[in-house]
């Protein structure tokens, strides 16, 4: 075969090879995903860490533009705040010791202690800005899958609230999914009425619209009166996440039960307290010891 026929055969062969390559890559993607994810996370880590270092350097250098008296005042305020936090910590340690002793006397399982690892954002996808990001700490500092991640409360830099949980970890980085991600399934408790539910436990997706961003709390029992504005904290159902960490405010029930429905639960919306748009510093809570999850007492 000569001329155009050979040319078309050549083109068809080329397209067939291209098609096989594309479909092969797509089909085997989930097998290679972890490997390439690790390559990206660890190979590019030193290069992608450079902008973070440059930003921190710039941030430190801009402090030099402030007047010495202003810096001295800020330093004194920070010292006073540190002393206050240190004394609060001393009281908390005393309470912790007392709790440990009481648990021992009552023969209850010991509560697990946590380490606090500070981290910064290493990488972020603009298309998933509020749902997911990567931090610059990994399993080399003890971060594990499921560890809770805290950040400053919106408008109050002193109060730490739950921002998300660790989804996957590499040596130097960890992938965090926020409360707005449908994969972040966390137990939660309404602080005032004491009712527990599960964040992202069902199929209803979190919402981001003109009135703000909301995550969904599922499996709230029917028959309770739920007040909008009630604070929501972690339930402590997971061994990695301690109870009582602020999550946000309850906004209201969605899709209430109709008269003919026989469902035993309702779903509600929570407005996360974390400012997910502007995160800089984060704290990751990691368990001190890898204890086996306590067995339920029946």
């Amino acid at each position, binding site marked *: 075969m000569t001329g155009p026929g050979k040319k078309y055969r050549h083109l068809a062969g080329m397209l067939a*090879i291209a098609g096989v390559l594309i479909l092969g890559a797509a089909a085997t993607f989930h097998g290679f995903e972890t490997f390439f994810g690790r*390559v990206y996370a660890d190979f590019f880590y030193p290069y992608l860490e450079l902008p973070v270092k440059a930003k921190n350097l710039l941030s430190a250098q801009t402090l030099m533009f402030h007047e010495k008296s202003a810096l001295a005042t800020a330093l004194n305020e920070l010292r006073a705040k540190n002393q206050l936090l240190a004394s609060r910590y001393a009281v908390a340690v005393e309470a912790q010791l007392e709790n440990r002793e009481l648990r021992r006397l009552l023969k209850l399982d010991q509560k697990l202690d946590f380490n606090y690892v500070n981290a910064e954002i290493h990488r972020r996808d603009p298309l998933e800005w509020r749902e997911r990001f990567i931090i610059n700490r990994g399993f080399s500092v003890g971060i594990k899958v499921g560890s809770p991640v805290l950040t400053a409360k919106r408008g109050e830099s002193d109060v730490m609230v739950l921002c998300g949980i660790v989804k996957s970890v590499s040596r130097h980085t960890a992938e965090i999914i926020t409360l707005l991600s449908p994969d972040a399934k966390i137990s939660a408790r309404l602080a005032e009425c004491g009712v527990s539910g599960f964040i992202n436990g069902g199929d209803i997706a979190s919402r981001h*619209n003109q009135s703000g961003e909301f995550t969904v709390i599922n499996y709230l029992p029917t028959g309770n009166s739920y007040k909008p504005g009630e604070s929501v904290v972690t339930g402590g159902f997971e061994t990695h996440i301690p109870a009582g960490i602020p999550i946000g405010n309850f906004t209201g029930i969605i899709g209430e039960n109709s008269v003919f429905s026989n469902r035993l639960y309702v779903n509600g919306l929570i407005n996360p307290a974390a400012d997910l748009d502007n995160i800089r510093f984060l704290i990751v809570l990691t368990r001190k010891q890898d204890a086996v999850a306590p067995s339920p007492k029946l």
Partner: protein
Amino acid sequence: MTDVFILLIIFVGIFTQSVLGTAGIYLPIMALLLFYIAVNFNIIRTLFYALLCGILADAASGYQFPCHIFIYSLLPLLGLYWVKIHDLRPLYLNFFPGILVAAIQIIPLALIRFRFDDPAFQLFHKWIPILLAGIIFGALFMPLAIAILDYFAHALKVTRYQDAGSKPQAKSRRWY
């Protein structure tokens, strides 16, 4: 040398896109650079690198559906088509593939990731600004990238984008 040049372009593309992404700016840099590679080099080689970039991008972004693999796979075909139908010499003319590549990158992602709980808000506050910014950036970046990369390509004695249509290899029967 050709593969080193391509790998360097890919590295710079991934790095720049990641750094800008962390700053909250979504620009289709990698797709535009892959189009440059697609015009310059043969289709199977470009496809191999496009698939590599697609897998890396999907693995890094954690998407369940490997959309970047399919999006980046279209670029070698677009590059082949562009070489065949257009004279690549006037640099400013390359604003058009810049727009096209940006649209190819952003529109499928918008269709996959569109959320219907508040469609008007999603459309006007998220996807249209991203698409417009991407298209404008593509139109400006493509001629600029060609000028800069062709300079390095000439220095490294690698095929230049602007000679791609008339290069001897284009008439060769070799596809690998």
